[in-house]
């Protein structure tokens, strides 16, 4: 099936948010802080305002009367810096002008007087006893959580959040285990850099507001805008236009509210489109330090794990609280059977770029550490890494701990698939190594509700209204497959409508790989409602005493009378035509007992196997072969599953060997341009990348479908690192693994990674 959007994409006629314009639209450019941590003494915008092309300049003074704080759970980020800045690149003012170039020129004339404060560039600096405080924090505040879990806001200086989950009796198990291993891993942060940056056009019309943007959370954004501007939600209309990818960069409200404020000040529609350089300053993945203590019995059975996932949250909360909780609770224990777990997640504030949603949502950090340690333990105990894992993986139907969603994938099958494909048991050539990893994350979000509407037209074509944002993951295709199956129509006659919060039914956002499973289920129920209406209509219209209404191959039959959809519509509604409308809903309900407020929607395992070659002289690592498998439950769009898996694998490979944001001693970004920040190209691809889409059929979606949009990034980095360890005999605890690291450790069986 070729979707209409695909043809538009290869023809270059597909329109994204960045292509959107309104007549009379003005352009905004932000003035950003050069300092990581500084007090703002004064802002003098006079030289900018005198420019005849400049229409408005906004500073913190213009936030008066608003509730200008953004963030998920903790709202601590102002639309423009108020009083002080907490990271280099933080917006302190915005200039609106008739042309982008005029706005940029005027922005350069805004003069800020600063009092520079000591920076807090790293986790260690933030936790030092004499560390400067980034916020005037209140007393620690305890937040209620479900069974076995607790959370605290601001439990210590520069600590935004601490979460702890406990099940079983770890102390007893650590006390009597044959082996206990403690290892610490360090994880750098990548930049999302979707090709299309964040972009918003906003129009304030006195009574309400309209926003066109590429944010994947149009309804959360509507709620946030209503709060910030004290407007009824119903007076705010958000259009989530197709996005040129995201990877997390476009989730949760970003600069849309600021753009709306600028429109109100300028009394015109305003566009604010960030550059790539600015995207790198806006949000990043979380850097992390992960310490794992794992108890193992004499026979190689995993007993207990204690973990600390310490995330560098950067200057502001954004989504850090929930990244921390999900990473610590759902990814840190990994895919294994434990008798006891104690997981702690912590978000540390530093004066660096805010960190937030990034594909995997805390999972990549936890899985890299977890799967590196499992491999290291296998080597220390002289166990085969694949067999060691197999012995301890959760089985289908097994609860990871009491009260949590039972495992809904066959993990052993997934591991066997990738290990078999890489030739795990085969001999290794000199300088070569193989590694496997099994990553684990939840999918489907916290408690969740997705709504969908399907409208069937007289001609038998169908329109789907759903809040699933198009980031390139192919939601229109999944919708078409689901609708065409239920109605027996050509998928090419199904279209997913653009998102407009005035018309699209509510959805809690395109997160956590929910598309196929949760939104898909809502769409399935909506189209089943349409089908029921069609059948009821046929029963009413076809005056045939005998027989039930049968729906087959797009025709509706009762007894000997068979009608097409148009003929049925004509008989029922006359020549003017009409529509049949169905609604559907999918929910993952609140559960006060569940540690995170709801059981996990589904589990999203990730299986990877890598073969690398290592040049002992230069330390250069080449990934020769990569095999990655995910469980789609049921593949609604097999090519889409393949693409998600391949794409995530490339990101995982980049995480392992290539990409990392680099900061100077004061926490300023040192490689903050597209030229300086190295990204993978086709030259970095292994000769062989094999993807396997498993269909274990145990997910909550149509035919047992699950999401797999985030899986591949979970396991690939660890599999590659494990392969390098296999080749060199050294353990690697820090990413990315550079040639310098490898050259320093290569050949020493007990080698410890430098730095």
């Amino acid at each position: 099936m070729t979707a209409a959007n695909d043809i538009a994409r290869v023809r270059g006629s597909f329109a994204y948010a960045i292509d959107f314009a309104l007549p009379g639209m003005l352009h905004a450019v932000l003035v950003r802080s050069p300092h990581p941590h500084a007090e703002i003494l004064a802002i003098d915008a006079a030289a900018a305002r005198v420019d005849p092309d400049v229409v408005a300049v906004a500073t913190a003074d213009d936030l008066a009367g608003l509730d200008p704080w953004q963030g998920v759970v903790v709202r601590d980020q102002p639309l423009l810096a108020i009083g002080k800045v907490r990271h280099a690149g933080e917006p302190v003012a915005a200039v609106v002008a008739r042309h982008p170039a005029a706005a940029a020129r005027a922005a350069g004339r805004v003069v800020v007087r600063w009092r520079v404060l000591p920076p807090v560039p790293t986790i260690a600096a933030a936790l030092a006893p004499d560390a400067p405080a980034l916020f005037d924090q209140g007393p620690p505040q305890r937040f209620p959580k479900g069974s076995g879990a607790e959370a605290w806001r601001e439990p210590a200086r520069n600590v935004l959040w601490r979460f702890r989950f406990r099940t079983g009796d770890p102390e007893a198990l650590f006390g009597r285990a044959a082996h206990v291993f403690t290892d610490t891993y360090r994880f750098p942060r990548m930049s999302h850099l979707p090709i299309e940056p964040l972009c918003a056009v906003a129009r304030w019309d006195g009574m309400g507001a309209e926003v066109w943007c590429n944010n994947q959370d149009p309804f959360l954004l509507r709620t946030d805008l209503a709060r910030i501007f004290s407007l009824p939600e119903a007076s705010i209309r958000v259009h989530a236009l197709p996005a040129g990818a995201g990877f997390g960069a476009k989730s949760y409200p970003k600069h849309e509210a600021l753009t709306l404020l600028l429109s109100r000040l300028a009394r015109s529609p305003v566009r604010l489109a960030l550059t790539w350089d600015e995207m790198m300053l806006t949000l990043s993945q979380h850097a992390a330090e992960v310490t794992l203590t794992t108890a193992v019995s004499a026979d190689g059975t995993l007993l207990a794990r204690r973990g600390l996932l310490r995330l560098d949250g950067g200057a502001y909360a954004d989504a850090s609280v929930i990244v921390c909780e999900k990473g610590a609770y759902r990814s840190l224990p990994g895919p294994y059977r434990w008798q006891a777990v104690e997981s702690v997640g912590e978000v540390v504030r530093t004066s660096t770029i805010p960190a937030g949603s990034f594909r995997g949502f805390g999972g990549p950090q936890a899985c890299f550490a977890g799967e590196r340690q499992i491999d290291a333990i296998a080597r220390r105990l002289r166990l085969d890494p694949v067999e060691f894992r197999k012995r301890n993986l959760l089985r289908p139907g097994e609860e990871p701990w009491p009260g949590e969603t039972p495992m809904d994938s066959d993990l052993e099958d997934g591991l066997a698939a990738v290990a078999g494909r890489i030739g795990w048991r085969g001999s290794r050539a000199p300088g070569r190594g193989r590694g496997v990893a099994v990553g684990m994350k939840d999918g489907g979000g916290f408690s969740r509700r997705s709504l969908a509407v399907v409208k069937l037209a007289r001609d038998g074509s169908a329109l789907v209204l759903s809040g699933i944002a198009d980031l390139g993951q192919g939601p229109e295709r999944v919708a078409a497959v689901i609708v065409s199956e239920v109605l027996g129509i050509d998928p090419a006659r199904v279209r997913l409508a653009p998102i407009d919060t005035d018309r699209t039914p509510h959805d809690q956002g395109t997160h956590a790989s929910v598309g196929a499973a949760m939104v898909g289920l809502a769409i399935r129920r909506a189209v089943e409602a349409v089908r029921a209406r069609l059948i009821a209509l046929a029963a009413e219209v076809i005056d045939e005493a005998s027989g039930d209404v049968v729906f087959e191959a797009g025709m509706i039959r009762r007894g000997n009378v068979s009608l097409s959809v148009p003929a049925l519509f004509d008989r029922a509604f006359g020549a003017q035509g009409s529509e049949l409308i169905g609604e559907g809903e999918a929910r993952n309900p609140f559960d006060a007992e569940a540690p995170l407020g709801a059981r996990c929607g589904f589990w999203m395992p990730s299986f990877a196997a890598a073969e690398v070659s290592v040049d002992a002289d230069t330390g250069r690592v080449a990934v020769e072969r990569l095999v990655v498998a995910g469980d789609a439950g049921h593949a609604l769009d097999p090519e889409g599953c393949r693409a998600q898996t391949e794409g995530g694998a490339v990101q995982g490979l980049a995480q392992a060997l290539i990409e990392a944001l680099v900061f100077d001693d004061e926490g300023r970004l040192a490689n903050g341009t597209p030229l300086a920040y190295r990204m993978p190209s086709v030259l970095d691809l292994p000769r062989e990348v094999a993807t396997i889409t498993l269909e274990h059929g145990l997910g909550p979606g149509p035919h047992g479908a699950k999401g797999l949009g985030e899986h591949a990034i979970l396991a690939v980095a660890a599999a590659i690192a494990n392969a390098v360890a296999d080749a060199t005999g050294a353990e690697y605890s820090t990413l990315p693994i550079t040639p310098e690291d490898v050259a320093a450790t290569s050949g020493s069986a007990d080698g410890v990674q430098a730095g």
Partner: protein
Amino acid sequence: MIDQTERIAFDLDGRPVAATVATNRLLIDLLREEFGLLGVRAGCDGGVCGACTVLIDGVPATACLMLAVEVDGRRITTIRGLECADGHLHPVQRAFLEERAFQCGSCTPGMVLLASALLAENPDPDEETIRAWMSAALCRCGGGGAILRAVRRAAAVMREAR
């Protein structure tokens, strides 16, 4: 701010066009804003991502690193110009569809143009050559493997048709 302008004329996707442009105007802005060519995708603004790739006299170039005045008298091909007049897609475009060699599609026009330029110059490129050419643009969705498959497929189809 427009201090100086210049009149330029060039061939755009097979048609002669003319424009009066500021001497500091970027080619990408001219093509997107004056000619409405969405297929010249905007990306990194620094010649790294390759989303704005166009062909100038058949040679790939990033429109974000060129001034509009530089194309005076030259032949520009954007993704729109690859299609036949009757709307039939170029074999490279078809191969990208068949291999589903895109997710968000932001890199697709540039990738398709790169591949078409390669195959026009070298109908039977080896793997190294394909990778070297296609590395001039980035697919952040990680679709490089499918893109390579699409280029190989297009090469085979085009050789067959010769």
